[in-house]
C-alpha cells in the first residue's frame, strides 16, 4: 500500500474513533475545564467554605462548614462531627485548632462552632430570595487541598419541600412497666437519651404527652407519630404526689435504617449521609457530592449563598437547607 492509501486508512480510523469516542473527563459537567468557568464562585468558597477535620492531624476532612460571622462562627453538619474530637478547621490557607461547639440544632442536624482567633473572617452573603428556580446553576465545595477549595457544580433539581423522616419512628428513651395496664410507669431510663437529659426518673408515671392524655401505650405512640428525631415533646409526669411538666427531646428508634434498592444503587452507607431525611424544607440539587463534602455553602452564579448542603441523599440528589431557614438559624444561634 502506498503512503496515500495509508493516510486514507488512518483518516478513516480517526473519524471512526471520533464517532465512537468518549467525551474527555475534563470536559464533562464536573470536569476540570468546565470548573474553570466557575472561578468567581470558587473565590467565594475559598474564603467562606470551612474545611472541618476531626482526625487530629487535619489531613482527612470530615465535612465542610459555612462561615457565618466575621468572628469565626461556622455552621456544619452536626451528625458528622458528633462525638469526634479534636475539631480543627481550615479557612483559606489558615488552619485553626482552637474550636468550640457553641450550639446544636438537632432538627436541622446543624452545629455552630466558633474558631478562636483574632482574624477577621469573611461570612457568606445569604440570599434574600426564598427559593432557587429549578434549572439554575448551584455551586458547592467539592474537593480541597491545603491551599485551595475547588468547586463542584449542579443545578436546582426539584421543588423545595419537606423531607419526611423515614426512620421507624422516634422514642423518648424509657422502658415502661408491664404489670399495670392502665398506669404508664417508667421502669428504666435509657442512658444518654432525651428522657435522661430531661431528668425523667424511674417510678415516674406518664400522664400526658404533647397535650394528649395517656391512658395506654397506644396513646403515647400516637403522640409521637410524625415527629422527627431532635424535636421535643412536652411530657407531664406524676412523681410521688407532684405533677411535673418536662420537655423531652425525641431520638430515632435504634436499629439500622432499611436500605432501599435505590440506596444500594447510590453506593449505600459508604456514599450517603447517615442522616438524610427528616428535614422541614430542603433545596434539592443534582451536584454529586460525597458524604464528607456536605456542610458547606451552596452558591448561585452571582456568588450569593442560597443554602447549606446538609445531606447526600441518593445517586441523583443532594439536599441543602434553604437560605430563609438558614438566616433564621444564624440569627438565633448568634444571639
Amino acid at each position, binding site marked *: 500500500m502506498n503512503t496515500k492509501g495509508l493516510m486514507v486508512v488512518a483518516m478513516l480510523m480517526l473519524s471512526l474513533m*471520533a464517532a*465512537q469516542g468518549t467525551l474527555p473527563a475534563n470536559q464533562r459537567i*464536573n470536569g476540570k475545564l468546565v470548573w474553570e468557568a466557575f472561578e468567581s464562585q470558587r473565590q467565594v468558597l475559598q474564603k467562606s467554605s470551612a474545611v472541618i477535620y476531626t482526625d487530629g492531624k487535619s489531613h482527612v476532612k470530615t465535612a465542610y462548614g459555612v462561615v457565618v460571622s466575621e468572628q469565626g462562627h461556622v455552621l456544619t453538619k452536626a451528625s458528622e462531627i458528633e462525638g469526634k474530637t479534636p475539631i480543627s478547621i481550615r479557612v483559606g490557607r489558615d488552619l485553626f485548632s482552637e474550636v468550640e461547639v457553641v450550639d446544636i440544632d438537632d432538627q436541622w442536624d446543624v452545629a455552630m462552632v466558633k474558631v478562636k482567633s483574632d482574624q477577621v473572617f469573611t461570612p457568606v452573603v445569604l440570599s434574600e430570595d426564598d427559593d432557587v428556580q429549578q434549572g439554575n446553576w448551584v455551586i458547592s465545595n467539592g474537593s480541597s487541598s491545603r491551599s485551595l477549595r475547588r468547586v463542584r457544580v449542579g443545578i436546582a433539581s426539584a421543588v423545595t*419541600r419537606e423531607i419526611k423522616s423515614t426512620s421507624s419512628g422516634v422514642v423518648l428513651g424509657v422502658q415502661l412497666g408491664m404489670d399495670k395496664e392502665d398506669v404508664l410507669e417508667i421502669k428504666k431510663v435509657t442512658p444518654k437519651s432525651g428522657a435522661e437529659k430531661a431528668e425523667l426518673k424511674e417510678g415516674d408515671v406518664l400522664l400526658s404527652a404533647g397535650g394528649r392524655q395517656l391512658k395506654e401505650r397506644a396513646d403515647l405512640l400516637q403522640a409521637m407519630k410524625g415527629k422527627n428525631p431532635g424535636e421535643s415533646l412536652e411530657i407531664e409526669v406524676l412523681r410521688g404526689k407532684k405533677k411535673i411538666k418536662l420537655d423531652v427531646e425525641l431520638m430515632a428508634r435504634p436499629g439500622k435504617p432499611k436500605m432501599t434498592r435505590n440506596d444500594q444503587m447510590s453506593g449505600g452507607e459508604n456514599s450517603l449521609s447517615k442522616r438524610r431525611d427528616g428535614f422541614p424544607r430542603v433545596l434539592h440539587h443534582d451536584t454529586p457530592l460525597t458524604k464528607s463534602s456536605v456542610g458547606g455553602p451552596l452558591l448561585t452564579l452571582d456568588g450569593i449563598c442560597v443554602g447549606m448542603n446538609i445531606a447526600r441523599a441518593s*445517586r*441523583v*440528589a443532594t439536599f441543602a437547607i434553604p437560605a430563609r431557614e438558614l438566616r433564621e438559624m444564624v440569627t438565633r444561634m448568634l444571639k
Partner: protein
Amino acid sequence: MKKNLPELRVAVAMTMAVIGSLAPSLGAKVFPLNEKKVPESMEDLMAIQDALVGSLPRVRKATVSIKLGEGFGSGVIVSPEGLILTAAHVTAGVGKELTVILNDGTEHKALSMGLVSNTDAAMMRITEVGEYPYVEMNKENDYQLGHWIFALGHSGGFDKERGPVVRLGRIVKDSETTLQTDCKVIGGDSGGPLFDMEGQLIGIHSRVSKTMEQNMHVPMREYIKHWDEMEENKFLGDGPFAKRPVKGSGFLGFGSSDTEEGVIVGKVLEGGPADKAGIKTGDLVLGINEQKIADKAALKAILKEKTEGDELELSISRKGEELQIKVKLGKR
C-alpha cells in the same frame, strides 16, 4: 385483541398526522454553546441556564410516572392523544394495562404497545380520550458527543409535592443503540426523557453502571427506526429488557370434561380469568375465536398457540342460550 386493532389504527393515524405537522419546526435552531468545548465565561453559563429554565415548564408537564403492579417508572408523552415513549423494561410486555400519573396527580389508564427487547425501546398509549401535554421529538438525530442535555424523571416513584426531577449533563458517548451521559439517573427514572437544550426529546433513560457518569439512554433514532412496528404492537428482538411471552403460557382457569354434547365447564377457579369473565360451571363451550371446539383436545390445541395476556372469544351455550364471552388469558 383483534377487535381492538381497528380502533388503535385510528389513534395511530391521528398521531402520525400530528407528528407530520410538527416536522417543519424541528431542527431549526442549534444551541450555540454546543459549538464550544467547554463554557468559558459567566455569559456561557447563563446561556445554558437560560435555555434550561426556558425549556423546563413545557417539558415537565409531559413527563409522566408509570405504574405497573408494584413497579414504577417514567415516560414522556409525544402526542396530544397520549402516545408515550418509555423503556421496554418498564412496560415489560405488549398489551399490558398500566397506569399513567400526570404531574397534577391525576391517574389515567394506559396500554403498552410494541417494544424492542434488545435496546429497551418501548411505546404505550393512554386509553382515555383527552388532550395531553406533549413534547417534540428531535427527529434529525443531530445530537452529538459533548452536547449539553438534561434529564427529567420521577426518581424513586411519583411524588406530587416534589414533581419530576431535572438533571443537567453532557453526552459522554454515542453509539447506535445507546447514549451515555453524565446526567445522573436512578430507579424510577427508567423510561423518562432526555432532552437537548431546545427541549426536544433525544432519548429515554434505560440503565446505569457503577460510576456517576455511566447513565445509559436509548437514543431517539432507535424509536424512529422501529416506530411502525411498535405502533403495530410488535414484540421485537430477544434481548434482556423484556421477556417474550412463551406460547402455551396462558390459561383460562377452569376444568372441563368431554361429553356427548361437547366440552362442559367443570370447576371454575375463583378469581381466575374465566371467573372474572363470567364463565360458569356447566357452560358448554361451542367454539373459540370462531373455531369450533369438538373436544378437550381441540381446546388444548388452541391454548398451546396462545400466550398470557391474549384475549379469546368463547362461544358458550348456557341453558340453551348462546353467549359470546371474552376472556383474557392469565399466566400459567
